[in-house]
């Protein structure tokens, strides 16, 4: 079976991209959670 082996730099780059994407998704979850709190409290939070 013909396969493609990732080089070390490709692995490192992909890991970095995955972590960054995960961080962005987590950030969006937190953002929407706090926005919901702010909106539901009539803008009084903060």
């Amino acid at each position, binding site marked *: 079976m013909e396969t*493609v082996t*990732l080089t070390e730099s490709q*692995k490192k780059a992909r*890991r970095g*991209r995955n972590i960054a994407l995960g961080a962005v998704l987590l950030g969006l979850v937190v*953002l929407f959670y706090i926005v919901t709190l*702010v909106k539901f409290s009539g803008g009084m939070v*903060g």
Partner: protein
Amino acid sequence: MAVIEHHETIPGGGEVYLSEASPRDFFELLKPRVMSLVVFTALAGLVVAPGTINPFIGAIAILCIAVGAGASGALNMWYDADIDAVMTRTAKRPIPSGRIRPQEALAFGLTLSAFSVAILGLVVNWLSAGLLAFTIFFYAVIYTMWLKRSTPQNIVIGGAAGAFPPMIGWACVTGGVSIESVVLFLITFLWTPAHFWALALFKMRDYDAVGVPMLPNVAGEATTKVQILVYAVLTAAIAVVPSVLGFASLGYGLFAAALGLGFVWYSVGVLRMPEGDRAMVPAKKLFAFSIVYLFAVFSGLMLDHLIASFGWVL
């Protein structure tokens, strides 16, 4: 952490593209330095606008404006990759250097555009989201795809894209557009030609090599120098208007006037620069000062507003 060692066989045995792009490369697509200016001027619009905004909502507004500006930067780099590869200033950007493929940059730019506009609309208001969408469209389509390669007035008209952020910040708080926010827009709009043509003077050969009709290449150095001075005078004048209209104090007006004199002074230095001067030191000085100038003017506006808010007297 487990890392997949192998891919499945590729049907047809074609070449596989495996990206080595790091998050830093994608961040570079956002033109972080331009973004910092956008964040700063948008913040000024947000702070100076009458009324209040929840600090968290305000922070999201700034984030969305920054991401939207970054997205338009990515779309600009996608479209301009051919000329970026030739110019020394831009040859090391992620696409011409081969770290990111054009399709990746396009997808990245479009995704961020959609997310930034949608979140700004849902969280803040749809007028500011509409203005942000128009800004991205203006920079990516009107400026990058159309004006940049077709007219030496490219930067004059295209500069509008960079001038919208304070107006968006203002719209985030007030939900509208007013004469005051138009003045904030005009400060950056009128500043851009002098700032960019100073750069174009000492990077003239670069623009010439790729056929981008920047004013120095098309109309010559002498005309460019006069135009720089004209726009510097206009910028210095409009920067004082907030004080005249009453949404900034006399103290701010004097501060802006002094900065404006500096801006005009450096422009006169460029005007006096001998034709064919290769070092172009006055143009480089004007370029550097122009950045300080814009930051200082918007800092002054914000500081003035904060002082007025707390009832301090100078």
